[in-house]
């Protein structure tokens, strides 16, 4: 089986969606071939002037039936300077996975959690070209969703039935790139 050097989910990011402190969202991510996971990048926007520091935790989850299970994670932080990324898009990037892992092909989920320490106001994910917010819950199998309660840690497992799957705030997907 070939080994990928990188995988992304489509580099389209004309829209922004604000991120709330302590919110945990699960984003689907299709791996077409095996990849050794080293680096994680997600598109973000800081919509204010002035400096900013924020930490962020990323969990790699597998799904079995209706349960998501944490298999690996990355934690990092970013700093924004008044003359740097402020009012611009930027990539959050982290490289320290909790364990070495070769991700197998298939559907995986990234759970992204913003720290509850410090204000995350004015920080958004860089998302797609056109936002379409459905008024009903997604039918069929689970394809992503968001926790409704605030949390301060990545859960080791979570039932998909405990996730909100209605509307753009629950179902949006940011631009993500991972690389070996």
């Amino acid at each position, binding site marked *: 089986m070939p080994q990928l050097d990188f995988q992304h989910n489509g580099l389209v990011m004309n829209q922004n969606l604000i991120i709330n402190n302590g919110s945990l969202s699960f984003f689907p991510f299709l791996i077409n071939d095996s990849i050794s996971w080293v680096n994680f990048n997600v598109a973000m926007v800081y919509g204010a002037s002035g400096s900013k520091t924020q930490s962020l935790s990323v969990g790699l989850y597998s799904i079995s039936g209706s349960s998501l299970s944490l298999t690996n994670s990355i934690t990092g932080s970013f700093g924004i300077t008044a003359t740097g990324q402020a009012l611009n898009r930027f990539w959050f990037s982290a490289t320290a996975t909790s364990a070495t892992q070769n991700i197998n092909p298939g559907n995986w989920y990234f759970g992204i959690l913003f720290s509850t320490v410090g204000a995350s106001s004015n920080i958004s994910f860089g998302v*797609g070209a056109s936002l379409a917010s*459905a008024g009903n819950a997604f*039918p069929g199998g689970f394809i992503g969703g968001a926790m409704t309660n605030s949390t301060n840690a990545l859960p080791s497992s979570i039932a998909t039935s405990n996730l909100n799957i209605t509307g753009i705030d629950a179902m949006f997907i940011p631009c993500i790139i991972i690389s070996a």
Partner: protein
Amino acid sequence: MSDFLLMGVGDRRAVVVAAANPQLQFFENFPGKGGAGNVAYSNGTLSIHAVNIPLSLSFGYPVVLLSASSNALSNWLGEIHFGLYSLNGSTLSLANSASAAGSFITTAYSWMSMATSATQNISPGAWYFGLNIFTSGVAVHTSLSFFVNSSINPQNAIPGGFLMGRMTASTNAMPGSIATSDLDITGSDAIRQPYIIITA
């Protein structure tokens, strides 16, 4: 000695095949966040496009994203049909299908899930998604739009092998076979693809 070696090869193949062919939980024909907005579809006009499905997938629930701009759609009498086609030469053959009918949320987009006609495990490779919408009764289909991936309008036909197209004649059924030469492959109507997700 030869018997021993053959048994060893057999065991190894079984392990490799299991690891190399995992099952997808879902497949989307394009990343939904890359959608370009919603576009109205003509009544009874079948559109079809190619997808590359990377891993095996159970044909469980085809789902589309619709926008309804008329209150009349809360009692809509039409149907949405999905066809899973394979291509052999220049002929598309229907392998499976799904359909749905119902009402919509008129103030937002609506997910609509279709019921499949038969169970199937879709093998990895090139497949063709066909989608058709037709109204029997109140002609309100013009108020119903699909979330799509493109609004550009190329003036020449898509070159190369068949990738996507649209029937020019109206139909109220998902045809068992379609000659690709019968499909329009020029312009925005031919190349725009409705957002389709298949979940297991």
